[in-house]
């Protein structure tokens, strides 16, 4: 058993002059204050990686910088799935009695710390260095290949995928920390510059600076804790060329493992937090997990099903697509929002019922999957 006892989320966008360790520290400071804990209370530390600060030992580099003396430290690399994998690891460490309070922190100046070309080149390296990257493939291209199959198989039009970008922007307009808050229409998405057909600029998440942190604890400690009830992972492939089945990337297997661990059904989830690096990512994940029928994710978004006052609120902060994506902390913002919703602290975005939340992250090209199930206590 473990609890999230504190969280901290920075605004995403530009943080000129702040570097990886600075942003990780800013987020950690917020999370410790929220948990009501001091540095001395933290005996475990898990963190991810940073493309602007590649380091063999990021966790201990951060521990020294921030002033921690952990009994356990660990860096994890699973691309976009890293944030939720860190939370799963922290949960297991606490559950196993290795640590009492684990700090999970991430931050990166991905937007201002490097050129856009450098960011794209670095990210494309999740592709195969011998068989894919030399073709001039990019992350949007890998996902666009998936999108072509998806649209062909289920008869989905680009306009229907665009609905997912319109929805997340609607959500972001209600969050002061979001990188992009101006409402957009399907026509805006369709008229934005093509990056890798059928994906347009507004089908793609931005590159951002930001940071996010949590404290995962053995005891509730304060009045705003939520329980981590179940976790799961699946890793079927790394490269999209090697994906065996594009209708079963691993999201459903990961979700099934988390649901079994929690002893609940996917229908029980009242609040959703689903990885959305591209509109196609969100459609694929929602549908493979069984949260909407195949080919229907865009229609559900258009109908307001996922809005804060809808049937099943999702990514009410604006997701990667509009809140922003700064690497490891990108998806952690989904959890920060779920945590606020579950503890009644989401303000104007507050949903009626966030008693049970289902979260899902993916890394690579739908390669690494991590699912989390949280419940109110």
């Amino acid at each position, binding site marked *: 058993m473990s609890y999230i006892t504190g969280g901290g989320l920075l605004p995403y966008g530009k943080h000129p002059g702040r570097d990886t360790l600075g942003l990780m520290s800013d987020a950690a400071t917020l999370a410790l204050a929220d948990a009501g804990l001091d540095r001395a209370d933290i005996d475990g530390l898990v963190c991810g990686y940073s493309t602007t600060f590649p380091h063999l030992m990021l966790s201990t580099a951060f521990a020294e910088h921030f002033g921690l003396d952990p009994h356990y430290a660990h860096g994890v690399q699973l691309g976009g799935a890293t944030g939720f994998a860190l939370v799963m690891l922290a949960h297991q460490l606490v559950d196993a009695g290795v640590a009492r309070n684990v700090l999970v922190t991430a931050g990166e100046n991905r937007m201002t710390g490097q050129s856009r*070309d450098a960011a794209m080149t670095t990210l494309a390296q999740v592709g195969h260095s011998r068989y894919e990257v*030399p073709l001039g493939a990019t992350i949007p*291209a890998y996902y666009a290949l*998936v999108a072509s199959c998806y649209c062909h198989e289920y008869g989905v039009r680009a306009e229907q995928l665009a609905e997912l970008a319109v929805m997340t922007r609607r959500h972001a307009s209600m969050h002061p920390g979001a990188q992009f808050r101006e409402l957009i229409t399907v026509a805006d998405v369709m008229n934005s510059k093509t990056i*890798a057909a059928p994906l347009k600029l507004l089908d793609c998440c931005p590159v951002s600076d930001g940071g996010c942190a949590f404290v995962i604890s053995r005891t509730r400690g304060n009045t705003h804790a939520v329980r981590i009830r179940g976790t799961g992972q699946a890793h079927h492939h790394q*490269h999209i060329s090697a994906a065996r089945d594009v209708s079963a990337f691993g999201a459903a297997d990961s979700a099934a493992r988390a649901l079994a661990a929690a002893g609940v059904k996917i229908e029980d989830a009242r609040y959703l937090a689903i990885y959305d690096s591209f509109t196609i990512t969100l459609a694929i994940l929602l549908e493979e997990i069984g949260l909407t029928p195949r080919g229907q994710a865009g229609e559900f978004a258009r109908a307001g099903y996922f809005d804060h006052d809808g049937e099943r609120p999702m990514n009410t902060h604006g997701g990667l697509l509009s809140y922003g994506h700064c690497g490891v902390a990108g998806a952690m913002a989904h959890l920060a929002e779920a945590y606020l919703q579950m503890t009644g602290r989401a303000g104007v975005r507050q949903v009626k019922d966030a008693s049970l939340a289902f979260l899902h992250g993916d890394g690579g090209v739908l390669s690494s999957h991590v699912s989390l199930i949280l419940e109110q206590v």
Partner: protein
Amino acid sequence: MSATAILDWTEGGAGLAYQHCPACQARWYMHRDFCPHCGHASPVNAQASGLGVIYAHTEVTRAPTEILRQYAPYTIVLVDCAEGFRVMAHGQAGLRIGDRVTAEFIEFGDRIIPRFIAAGD
């Protein structure tokens, strides 16, 4: 066929290479010195015909580097090859899922890469 006779674009040759396992009959594209399915230590290197069917496609407008910018837009495809493995490559503009294609080899940046074009009937 000996390994040295097989043309492999990743090594500068104008051909598509793949591997198969004499024990479990698995076939795959990305080179290894063992079978990733059963662990057999002596997979067979083989030359692909270059024939296949389009599985997925995209046109890349935003190239990742300055050097590749001159080639944009270019089409990237996934092709299910006749021998039973899947490959990523360039493609002729306008190819659609299910189209029968054949491989040619073109200069791209500082290397040679596979590019699929519609196969004649």
